[in-house]
């Protein structure tokens, strides 16, 4: 039997890359997918989206903010991937109350130029455990991205949770 190493929470994990997505497997499968252009394209995003109140400089990017579209998507993608640990932590905590939670959830949100996140919602889920879904939404609402210049960026991120 393959022995997985442990992460900071003491939960065994192993990591591998599958295409563009970071796949974390072990006791927990938590795969925040990197963005494809179709998933993050700012087309049809209304410029009047309410800015995140917590965003710096009233939602407007400061001087020196990222202004290259490809770079923006890359930074957002990598930031979302790095936040995977936050999602995994939420899952770990809910497992204490219900060790049987598993399934997939796809969340959507809009990254504002100021770095805040708005319009966070569950697009679909098979987790069958609303407390985890709500905790995931709450944690994403608190995310802060590097400010950038341009239109708000919509994101769709699937996470997969499981045990083995």
């Amino acid at each position: 039997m393959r022995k997985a190493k442990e992460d900071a929470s003491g939960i065994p994990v192993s990591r591998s890359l599958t295409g563009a997505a970071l796949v974390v497997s072990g006791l927990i499968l938590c795969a925040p997918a990197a963005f494809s252009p179709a998933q993050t394209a700012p087309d049809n995003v209304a410029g009047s989206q309410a800015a995140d109140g917590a965003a710096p400089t009233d939602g407007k990017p400061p001087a020196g903010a990222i202004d290259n579209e490809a770079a923006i998507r890359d930074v957002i993608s990598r930031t979302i991937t790095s936040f995977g640990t936050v999602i995994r932590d939420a899952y770990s905590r809910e497992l204490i109350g219900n060790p049987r939670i598993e399934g997939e959830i796809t969340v959507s949100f809009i990254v504002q130029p100021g770095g805040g996140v708005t319009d966070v919602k569950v697009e679909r889920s098979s987790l069958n455990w609303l407390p985890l879904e709500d905790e995931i939404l709450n944690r994403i609402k608190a995310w802060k991205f590097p400010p950038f210049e341009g239109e708000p960026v919509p994101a769709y991120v699937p996470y997969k949770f499981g045990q083995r």
Partner: protein
Amino acid sequence: MPKDQMEHIYRSIAPDRIPWNVESPPPILRTIVETNTVTPCRAIEFGCGTGNYVIYLASRGFDAVGVDISGAAIEIARRSASGKGAACRFIVADVLGDLEEIRQPFDFAYDWELLHHIFPPDREKYIGNVSRLLVPAGRYLSVCFSEKSAQFGGTGKYRKTPLDTVLYFSSESEMISLFEPLFVIDDLKTIDIEGKFATHKAVYAFMRKRS
């Protein structure tokens, strides 16, 4: 409301042949929503079946959750919501259980043709769950078959249906006794509701959770 029986129905009968599976939301629910009697909020349907009304609420801006005992029904509901791009959530759970799968409070709860599947000995437990999951003064709509209904033999409190389910037919006074300890009843009446194959008499109750 035997789980196995519901599971069998949803797995063996095409959705468009299931008598209670009506895609368009009932006029009563639409009126409540479209007259802003209840404005977009956190909403939950108990006994949502294939989720048609939950999807409707999501399309109207509600943060909507559907609960059903049948995993087969919820599979259909999730596929349907995904196909329609509706951001709503579905949970497989027994409304007579502890409902730990849900936990969050809601502003609006409803059950449409669910309560006649729940027999009197279990009803207090169910209504307690509804109350527990609502915020103080949260609104609650419940509609179930009336004992005045002429369907399924036309008489008797317990009646068997062509699908072999057994339903309990309620009176308005029973509803008052059931709801009043936990809810303020704003409106209670016996109405006609359109089913897929027949019109039914039903008891309608619209309430607020006691603070």
